[in-house]
């Protein structure tokens, strides 16, 4: 199973969480659904769909909590026949993050919840504050963009 990270600080806490909790799939994402680190997904596009849905569930739950005067609902858990999911958010210096964990019969919601608490602490400790960044792309990116979109639409 592969683990990939967009931001290096998330790697060690994630590897430890996966090993301890026996989770099958884990995504660490921003509240907008952008993936910072993942374990277990083979295709980036599948990963993006899962993170978009996970972020949406958390955003909807948080909005619902506000409507009824709660600060938040904490973790969410759904049990299926073969898989369960655990969704929770944690505040870090990098901003609020969401963790989606998919697990199977080899572990339990109790263990996932227990190790998630440690994972959230580790993320909080490891995350740097968000920093401003300089220019990313070269100024002459438009030729590349035109070529990419032309091939994307097969024109």
């Amino acid at each position, binding site marked *: 199973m592969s683990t*990939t990270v*967009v*931001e*290096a600080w998330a790697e060690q806490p994630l590897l430890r969480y996966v090993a301890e909790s026996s989770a099958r799939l884990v995504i660490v994402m*921003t*509240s*907008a*659904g*952008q*993936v*910072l680190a993942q374990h277990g997904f083979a*295709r*980036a*596009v*599948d990963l*993006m*769909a899962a993170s*978009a*849905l996970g972020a*949406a569930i958390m*955003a*909807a739950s948080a*909005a619902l909590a506000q409507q009824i005067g709660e600060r938040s609902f904490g973790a969410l858990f759904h049990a299926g026949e073969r898989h369960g999911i655990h969704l929770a958010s944690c505040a870090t210096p990098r901003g609020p993050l969401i963790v989606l964990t998919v697990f199977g019969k080899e572990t339990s919601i109790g263990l996932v919840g227990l190790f998630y608490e440690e994972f959230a602490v580790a993320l909080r400790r490891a995350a740097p504050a968000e920093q*401003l*960044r*300089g*220019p*990313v*792309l*070269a*100024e*002459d*990116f*438009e030729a*590349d*963009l*035109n*070529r*990419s*979109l032309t*091939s*994307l*639409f*097969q*024109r």
Partner: protein
Amino acid sequence: MSLVNFTTREITCKIVYYGPGRSGKTTNLQYVYSQVPADRKGRMVSLATQTDRTLFFDFLPLDLGTISGFATKFQLYTVPGQVYYNATRKLVLNGADGVVFVADSQVRQLDENIESLQNLQANILEHGVDARTLPMVLQFNKQDLPSELILSAEELDEALNFRNLQTFPADALHGVGVFETLKGVAAEVLRRLSQGGSGARRM
């Protein structure tokens, strides 16, 4: 806010298609989905009602390929257009790097277009973002309808385009203008990255 991985040289950007109900936001994504080869797209996720109206959002991940040495991915979202779904619209806008405002060209929909545009400004503001700095383009959809039923692109530009944004006449159902609109917003978002910004400025 776009994510940039300098180690693996990857960029991921979030684009939101916004606009009044039935203006053609989902149709834009469906057309893109139908045209893009399987290895460059993910599954299109639609959270819709039983009558196929968008309830929460549609989502389509696209792999644009390599741009300036960065593997670039775009996440396309739509929002539900109906007025009473504002709470979910606001959630989908969170972290957007760019917006396509899909206006319905029909004369009788002008008030809905203006209301939706004002709603967009208000929701962007609620996220603490300066709307003037958010990369955005306007699409005037349904330009294929009989001329007596619609406003021309020039008339819509006059009525809706206060920021002098790029505009694209379109017939999304048949794909006219869809590609150009996506290209327009992609260029705006990537231009921001090339200028050293990461999306819109927070207020």
